[in-house]
C-alpha cells in the first residue's frame, strides 16, 4: 500500500484538520464533536431550513464538499466508509438550526439510518423540527421491487443542489424535503469498477479484480456489483450503465434531464468525457434533452478506478433549482 498519510488511524482526523486550515472562510468545526463541520455562515442572514448530511469518509467531495452556499449547512463525518456518530449528527444539527427546522439528507445505509434517526430523535427533544430523506439511486443494488433498500450514491448530489437551492430560497421544511424527495425519485445511477480501493485503516484492497475484468454495478465502498464482465470499451460501458438507468426512468421524446458522469476516484477526466460523449449521443438519439451535464469527481471511493453515470429527470421547478447558484471550495462546476 502506498498512501500519503501518517498513522492510518489518524487518516480522517488529519485530513479534516488540513481541510479546515485550507478553507477557513468556508468551513468551521462546531462545538460538541470533532467530526461535525458546518458552513461558516450555516445559519445565514435570514432563518432558513438547515440541511444536515453525513456519511463515511473516503468519498470526497461527498459529503463534506456539499456543505456550502446554496447547498448543505453542515455535515457529520464518519470514519472511512463508516457511519458518523450520533454525537456528530447532533452537533451538526445544532449548528444548522435557525428556527425553520432541519432536513437530514443522506445515503440509504443501515448504520447511517440508525444514527441519523437517533440524532433526529434527540433534536426533536430539543424542540427542533426535522425531516429525513434518504437517497437510494443505485439501480444495481436491488431490483426495482426492492428499490427502497437500494444504496445512495452519486445521484445524492442532485438532491443536495435542488434542496439546497430550495432552502436558500426560503422554502419551508416540508417543501424542502419534498424537493429532495422528488429530485431523488427521478434520479438513477449505476457504476462500474475497474480496480479496488484500499481503506487506510485496513491497508488491504477491498476486493480483487483481474486485469481484463470490470465489475458492473459496483458501490461507492467497493461493494461487489451485479456481475463481472470482460473489460469492455468506453461505448460498451456507457451503453450498459445507461440502459440500466433508462429502463427505470419514464423518459420520452423532449424529456429534460441532467446527467452526471462521475469518477470513482482514480479514473481521469479524459475517460469520463469519452463516456459522456457516448451518453450524450445516445440520449440525443432518443430525443432526450440534456439540460446540464456534470463531468468530474463528485462522489468517489478513495482511489478506486471506475465511473458512474447518473441521470435526473427534470421538471420546471427542479430545473430552476438545479440552475441556482451554489458554491463550495471542493466543487469546481456545480
Amino acid at each position, binding site marked *: 500500500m502506498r498512501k500519503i498519510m501518517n498513522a492510518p488511524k489518524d487518516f480522517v482526523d488529519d485530513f479534516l484538520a488540513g481541510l479546515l486550515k485550507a478553507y477557513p472562510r468556508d468551513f468551521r468545526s462546531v462545538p460538541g464533536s470533532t467530526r461535525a463541520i458546518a458552513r461558516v455562515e450555516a445559519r445565514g442572514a435570514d432563518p432558513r431550513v438547515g440541511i444536515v448530511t453525513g456519511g463515511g469518509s473516503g468519498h470526497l467531495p461527498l459529503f463534506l464538499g456539499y456543505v456550502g452556499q446554496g447547498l448543505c449547512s453542515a455535515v457529520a463525518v464518519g*470514519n472511512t466508509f463508516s457511519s458518523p456518530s450520533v454525537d456528530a449528527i447532533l452537533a451538526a444539527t445544532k449548528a444548522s438550526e435557525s428556527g425553520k427546522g432541519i432536513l437530514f439528507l443522506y445515503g440509504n445505509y*443501515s448504520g447511517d439510518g440508525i444514527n441519523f434517526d437517533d440524532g433526529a430523535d434527540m433534536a426533536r427533544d430539543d424542540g427542533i423540527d426535522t425531516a429525513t430523506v434518504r437517497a437510494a439511486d443505485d439501480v444495481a443494488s436491488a431490483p426495482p421491487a426492492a428499490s427502497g*433498500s437500494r444504496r445512495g450514491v452519486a445521484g445524492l448530489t442532485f438532491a443536495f443542489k435542488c434542496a439546497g437551492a430550495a432552502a436558500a430560497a426560503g422554502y419551508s421544511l416540508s417543501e424542502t424535503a419534498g424537493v429532495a424527495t422528488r429530485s431523488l425519485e427521478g434520479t438513477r445511477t449505476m457504476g462500474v469498477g475497474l480496480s479496488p480501493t484500499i481503506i487506510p485503516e485496513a491497508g488491504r484492497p477491498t476486493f480483487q479484480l483481474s486485469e481484463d475484468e470490470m465489475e458492473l454495478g459496483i*458501490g461507492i465502498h467497493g*461493494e*461487489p456489483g451485479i456481475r463481472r464482465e470482460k473489460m469492455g470499451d468506453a461505448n460498451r460501458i456507457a451503453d450498459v450503465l445507461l440502459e440500466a438507468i433508462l429502463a427505470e426512468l419514464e423518459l420520452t421524446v423532449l424529456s429534460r434531464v441532467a446527467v452526471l458522469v462521475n469518477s470513482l476516484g482514480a479514473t481521469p477526466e479524459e475517460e469520463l468525457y469519452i463516456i459522456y460523449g457516448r451518453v450524450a449521443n445516445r440520449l440525443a438519439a432518443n430525443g432526450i434533452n440534456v439540460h446540464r451535464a456534470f463531468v468530474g469527481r463528485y462522489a468517489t471511493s478513495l482511489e478506486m478506478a471506475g465511473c458512474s453515470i447518473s441521470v435526473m429527470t427534470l421538471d420546471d421547478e427542479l430545473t430552476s433549482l438545479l440552475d441556482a447558484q451554489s458554491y463550495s471550495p471542493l466543487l469546481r462546476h456545480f
Partner: protein
Amino acid sequence: MGESSTKDALECLLRSLIDHEEEFRELDAAAGDGDLGITVRSAAAAILEWLPRNATFGSTSDLLAGIAQICASTSPSTFGSLVSRGLDAAAKAIGDQQIDDLSSMVVGLEAGIAMVQRRGRAAPGDKTFLDALVPALAVARGAASITVALPLMRAAAIAGTVQMMPAVPKHGRAAWVGERASGIPDAGSVVVIRALEALEGTDVQPWDAGTASR
C-alpha cells in the same frame, strides 16, 4: 465470577477480537465493504484502554452502558451502532443484577437481541449476526450455569452460522452482493462466535472448508 475475573474475561474477549481483525475484514470484504475488521478492532482497543481507568465492575449495568457508549463514539458503523444499542438495552434490562448470574445474562441477551432486531429491522434467517446470537440465547436459557452454558452457546452459534452459509443476505451492504455471498459465513456472526470462544477459552475454525473466495 468476581470483579477481577469479569475484568479478565472481558480483556481476554477484547484481545481475541483484535487478534481476529483480519478474519473479520476478509469475510466482510467478500460480502460487504470490508470495514468490519477496523470497526471491531478500534472499538475493542478503545474499550481495553477505558477498562482499567473507568470501568465500574461492581455494576454490570454501568459496565455495559459504558461499553455501549464507547462503541457508539469509536465505531458508529452499522455493526458498531447495533452492538451499542443492544448493550445499552441489555444494561437497562439487567439493572442491579450481576452478570455472573446466568439468569441476568439471559435477561441481558434477550433485551439486547430484541433491540438489535428492532433497530436493524432484521430477523433470524436474514443472514446477520442474529443467526449466531438467537440460537446461543436459546441454549443458554436451559443451562445450569454460565460455565455450562458457554460451550453450548458457542456450538449453537456455530450451527446457526453454518446453517445460514448457503443463504443470500437480506440486510446491510452484504445484501447487495446477492448470490455471491452464498457460501460465505456472515462476518458479524463470526464476531459473535469468536467472542464466545474467547469467553470459553477455545479457538476452532469450523467453517474453513466452506469459506468461498471471491
